[in-house]
Structures are given as C-alpha cells and as structure tokens.
C-alpha cells in the first residue's frame, strides 16, 4: 500500500482512503484490513476526484485543510474527503433535499463533515457555516457551473489556496463540441485563476474536464 498523495493510497490499481469511521461503509464500497488499519476502496467510476487522481492530478489537499465541497450529493465522495482530512473539515453543500438525507446521515457519523442544505448559486446563504477554507471543489451539473464556481471562490478563497473544478460539457451544451465548450470556460476562468493542471476524466466519465486552479 503506497501513499501517493496525503491520505490517498494505491494498492495494485485500486485507490483507497483510510477509514475514519472503522467498521462502517459509507455506501457499498469494499473495506480491506491492512497493518491494523482499515481502508475503503475509492472507485473512480463513482467519484470524479478519484478519477482525477487516477489520471495523475495532484490534488494538493493536505490532511489539515478545510474543504468547501459544492454539489455534495449523497456524500459518496465527501466520505473519502472526510477520510483524507484527519485534521480538517469538509463543508458539504447540497441543494436537493432528497439526496441530502444521506449526506446528513453520513455527517452524523463523521465528526469532520459540516452538512449544508443550500444553493451554491448564492454563497452568502451559508457564510455563517463556512470558515477558513483552503480548498474549494465543485461538481455541479448546471449550465452556469463556471459562474457558480467563480462566485464561491471569490468569497471563500485567497491567493495561494486551491480551487478544483469538475466541468461537465453536457450540462453546458448538448450539441456543441465539448472541446470548444471547455476552451470557452477555461478562457472565462483565466480572469480569476491561474491554471495549474488539467485532465479529461476518460475512461471513467465522458466529456468531463477536471481543472486545478489557483485564485489570482
């Protein structure tokens, strides 16, 4: 088992994080025991951050960072971020109450998840619940995903922090060529960000681009 990034382990071809809530599964992932510790498999087909790690993105998330996670959904990926941050918090924002139910259940068992039911379009809405953010990650399938991302990063990040964005071309346009869509969004983002690295998420996700950025 090799630690390839803080809190992220590789064994064979599979990714793992160290289970912060031993004995329990967050969804139906596989658990393995190794050297008195329990690890949870992190499936790149289910989690876009895992897909980015598989495609050689160095996330730059440290174990004592605070992460603002936009588009937390039912908390599949959030649970792994919670594993990675053994000295930090993840502020998980989700709009849909239906999926937020699972997220809240997860947050009850893990003491570094701050569940927020709110609309990421209006970052002011949850400003009293979000503190000292070092990393913003966003995975929201909406047409204005780039604008939502910029608004949140402007509010919660400073220079030197990290902004991670998962872009879904299909949510922006279903007919236009995805490369053109990506170029356009990247151009928009250069006003506010420095591009550090990027990768497509194939073969795990189709027409997705993962960007690692630094606010200017």
């Amino acid at each position, binding site marked *: 088992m090799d630690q390839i990034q803080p809190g992220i382990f590789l064994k064979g071809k599979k990714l793992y994080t160290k289970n912060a809530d031993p004995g329990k599964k967050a969804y139906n992932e596989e658990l393995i025991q190794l050297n008195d510790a329990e690890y949870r498999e992190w499936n790149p087909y289910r989690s876009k951050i895992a897909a980015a790690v598989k495609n050689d993105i160095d996330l730059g998330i440290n174990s004592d960072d605070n992460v603002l996670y936009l588009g937390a959904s039912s908390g599949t990926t959030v649970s792994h971020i919670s594993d990675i941050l053994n000295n930090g*918090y993840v*502020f998980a924002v989700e709009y849909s109450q239906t999926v937020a139910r699972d997220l*809240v259940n997860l947050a009850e068992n893990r*003491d570094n998840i701050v569940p927020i039911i709110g609309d990421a379009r209006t970052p002011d809405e949850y400003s009293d*619940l979000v*503190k000292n953010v070092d990393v913003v990650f966003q995975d929201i399938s909406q047409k204005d995903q780039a604008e939502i991302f910029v608004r949140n990063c402007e509010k919660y990040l400073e220079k030197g922090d990290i902004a991670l964005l998962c872009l879904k071309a299909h949510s922006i346009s279903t007919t236009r060529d995805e490369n053109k869509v990506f170029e356009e969004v990247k151009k928009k983002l250069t006003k506010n960000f420095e591009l550090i690295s990027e990768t497509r998420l194939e073969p795990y996700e189709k027409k997705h681009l993962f960007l690692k950025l630094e606010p200017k």
Partner: protein
Amino acid sequence: MVFLNQEDEIRKKALEQAKEELTSEADQEELMVKAVKYLETLDQEMASRIDKYRDWYSLHFPELEDEILENKEFIKILSKETNKKQIKGFEELAKDSKGKQLREKDHEILMNIAKDIKNNIEASEQLEEYIGNIAEEEMPNLSGILGNVLAAKIVYLAGGLDNLAKKPSSTVQMLGAEKALFRHLREGGKPPKHGILFEHEFVKELPDSKRGKMARFIANKTVMAARLDNFGDKNKVDEYSKEISEKYLELKEE
C-alpha cells in the same frame, strides 16, 4: 486548537439546521407536483389497461363494446356483471349478440378485473380532487383561469410555480408539446399550436384552425396569473377569465 473548536461548534449548528430543514413540514406545492406525476402515470396505465380489457371482453359481447364508448361507464357496468344474458338494460342488444360463450371461470376473472379498474378510476378521481384543492389554495389566480387540475399540471410541467412565473408565454404555450416542438425544430414539420393547454375547454372546443390563437391567448394570461400567484397577492381571476371568454366568443364567431 481554538481553531478546531470553532469548526466543531459550526458543525453542530449545521447538523441541527440541516436536520430541521429535512424534517420540517412538507411543502404543499411539492406534494402537489408529486401527486400530479403519479396521476399522470396512473391515467396512462389505466387507459392502456382498459384498451386491452375492451379487446378481451369483446370476444363475449362485442356489441356492448361498440355501444358504450365512455370507458368509465363501460367498466362500471362490467364490474357488476359480465355475462351478457344478465347485464341489466342491454337485453335487446344481448339477444342478437354474435359474441362467443364463456365459462363461469372466464366471467369470474373478467369481473374481478373490472372491479379492480373501477377502484383505480376512483383513486384517480380522488387524486384529482386532492391536487385540485392544493392548486386552488396555493395558486388562486392560475387555478381560477385554467381550472384546478390543469393549473396543477402546468406547474408540474414548468418545474414549479416559481419557474412558471419566470417563463415567457411562448414557452408556456408549448409546455407538454416538447416532442412535437423539437421535431419541428429538427426536421421541419409543422410547429405545435398547444401543449397541455389543449386540455382547456376553450381550446379543445374550437376548430383546429383557431386553437393556436386561443392557446396563445390563454398562455399569456397563464403567465400573468402565475406571476401574481408567485410574486403578488392580487386576485384578478374575474378580469382574466372575462378576457379569455371574450376571446373565445370572438374566435368562435369569426
């Protein structure tokens, strides 16, 4: 370490807030939209079940199937008796029937199914009443001009009253006709004149060539009513209804 404590406090607060939000009383509009979705499925399913049932039953008594075109009436009769010799009120029709004879067990199953469909029809009616009551309460202007159930359906198609209030009326005119609209945009063909608004009595009753005009007019008023219901508190049902019926009479006499 003071740092961590602050975040711990926040987490507790967030958890509490989230739980409170999840367990708060359900939004009436949300309930209505779910009920409309269910009603739609129920009605579609029922239509195709009745269709098959009619085909099945007509083996025995095709004359009745021809005579009673109204589904509800047809099912009501057969839920009491399926044997053509014993159905009351159709003795004359049964005498000359060219349908086949059935055994006892065949009748039994046909009658049970008719009863089951009848129950479903009642459930559908109950559902309509439930939906209509919420629509009347939550969106008085909209349900005033469209009728309760149609108002609820159009809110569902628009994705909520809030969204309906923000849509242009040309979009509202097409709600429910997406398939035809995109076929028109993609392949040419005629553009649709109305979507769900076809269910409005004034659209339905006009000749084909005038339905588009009527639907456009109602769509205008629909959006205005939705905006009143969502953002304002005035009641302009009488004013809008009057304009709509004037337009209807004008088109009818043209």
